[in-house]
């Protein structure tokens, strides 16, 4: 059994990761970290560079969490990558970060969080920044 967390280098992403580590430690389960990019732009600030990812890995090792870090670049949306991973690693919990969206922004860009919440087949823990 495992916990899947969608990680992006923002305050929400960090909050989600923090919470996911706590949950993983409590349940003694494996933590699967997903940081994906569609890979169709030259620069994606949501894709974590290697050095920063190494810091995350180091932290997980320090905290003694069994972990798997994935950075799929397959042209899929972040929501689909998280849901895919949840299914593949038989997740019993998905942790995501949540942020405020204006209705117009949501209309245009859609909502990754909403899609995960609606389509996940396991419980989803949504965390806000600074909690």
């Amino acid at each position, binding site marked *: 059994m495992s916990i899947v967390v969608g990680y992006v280098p923002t305050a929400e992403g960090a909050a989600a990761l923090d919470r996911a580590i706590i949950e993983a430690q409590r349940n003694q389960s494996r933590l699967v970290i997903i940081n994906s990019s569609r890979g169709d732009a030259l*620069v*994606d600030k949501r*894709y974590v560079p*290697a050095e920063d990812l190494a810091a995350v890995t180091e932290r997980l090792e320090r905290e003694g969490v069994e972990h*798997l870090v994935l950075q*799929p*670049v397959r042209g899929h949306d972040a929501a689909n990558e998280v849901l895919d991973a949840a299914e593949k690693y038989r997740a019993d919990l998905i942790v995501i970060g949540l942020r405020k969206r204006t209705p117009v922004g949501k209309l245009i860009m859609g909502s990754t969080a909403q899609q995960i919440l609606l389509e996940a087949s396991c419980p989803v823990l949504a965390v806000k920044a600074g909690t």
Partner: protein
Amino acid sequence: MDILSSLMDGFATALTPMNLLYALIGVILGTAVGVLPGIGPAMTVALLLPVATVLEPTSAFIMFAGIYYGGMYGGSTTSILLNTPGESSSVITAIEGNRMAKAGRAAQALATAAIGSFVAGTIGTTLLVVFTPIVVDFAVSLGSPSYFAIMILALLAVTAVLGESRLRGFASLGLGLAIGLVGIDSVTGQRRLTFGQPLLADGLDIVVIAVAIFAVGEALWVAAHLRRTPLQIIPVGRPWMGKQDWKRSWKPWLRGTAYGFPFGALPAGGAEIPTFLSYVTEKRLSKHPEEFGKGAIEGVAGPEAANNAAAAGTLTPMLALGLPTNATAAVMLAAFVQFGIQPGPLLFENEGPLVWALIASLFIGNTLLLLVNLPLAPLWAKLLRLPRPYLYAGILFFATLGAYSVNLQAFDLVILLVLGALGFMMRRFGLPVLPLILGVILGPRVEGQLRKTLQLSAGDVSGLWSEPIAIVVYIIVALVLVWPLLFKAWRRARPTRVAAAGPVTGGPVGDRSTADRSAAESPSVDSPTATRHRQADVSDGQENADAPKVTHVNHGQEKQ
């Protein structure tokens, strides 16, 4: 005095509000396409050709000039912040520029690139003003045999000297010349390469060819290699320079200009060789040689000045002789023809006001570019976050619209697709695009001069070398062709001495190959395999944190 008053008239034309607006549009478009790898000023001018026909020729060329110079500015931003050259001429900039950015000196690197480009562009344009009329005076005395020889030299030199592979260069040139042949022969009225198609009798429209090769070919190529690991952009504030930076930059700027202009003006110059020469010189002359490879400001200042001066230099043969030596100049030459203006030495005489307005707009555009680039560089870098499917969908839309609007014939769309597929294949097999475009544009003109020469000499072949200049040029042609063989023989004879010089002579070739790659085909050959690797890893579920690190290293290497 005459030049000065003509130039002032040019300024008067270029400074009208409407033309100033077009200069600004050109400058902004140019910077944008310069920043984006894979999209260059040549493609942009080609896409705008059909649109521009509704404009005054002067306004259109002012806009094109802005795009041309803007591309040179924009390329450096990408080189410095992303370590991916936005244009082939800013490959060298990426070496030191990106190191500087990684060391937290991105602001200074951007500033020295922008100000150096401005200084070099201004000096280069001044040299253009001084030298072009001299070249014109010389050129009007040339007869058809000399013209034919000079054009042959330009075609061969661009093909043989600039490319990484001469065979591929000549293959590309041959394709271009063949495409240029399609249509009715102007002298005998025979149909050539029309395959019984009446629609081909008028020949292929240059707009359709340029748009197909540059825009459709590139879009197909990018679509075939869409996914790649995103790169990290280095955050930067407003570019500025300290006193020490100024002190270390001004000499490289001037030296870079001195390299760039003559190389640009030569029939086979291009902007890549002078940037490399400038880099090597700065490395040798620098008081801080230990900083090279770790982010030396001289290594950004010199090459950036060189590529802008070369851009100005390229316009000298283009305006004075009607002889383009890079892709953008070639497409601009096609634009002259599109407007019914005959390029060549008589251009200054017949279209004086237009040409001088164009030159004046280069000064204006250069100043605008400094104003647009210096404070806004971080904003331009944001363009790189644009998802490429949107970008290329837009390009394809404009390409199709443009190709159709030239003759309002659906048949042109078929040609667009066929040639677009050819453009894709050329990128796939590493054929350079420049010889093809030059072949298409210069081919019919070369043929015209050859015909004229042979008519004058009543079919006698010796008419080809009846002028002394033609003979001199043929000797140079022979040298260009034989030089690599001689060099090879010399290298075999004296292997020890060349070993020391080896890296220097081998350097630009290697750099240029990556340069062509990244300019014409932004996702380089390695990246699709890298991406495939990653996909395999993901589907195996065995990917660990090391995998992205490996691909990052790969990207770093292939870009340098």
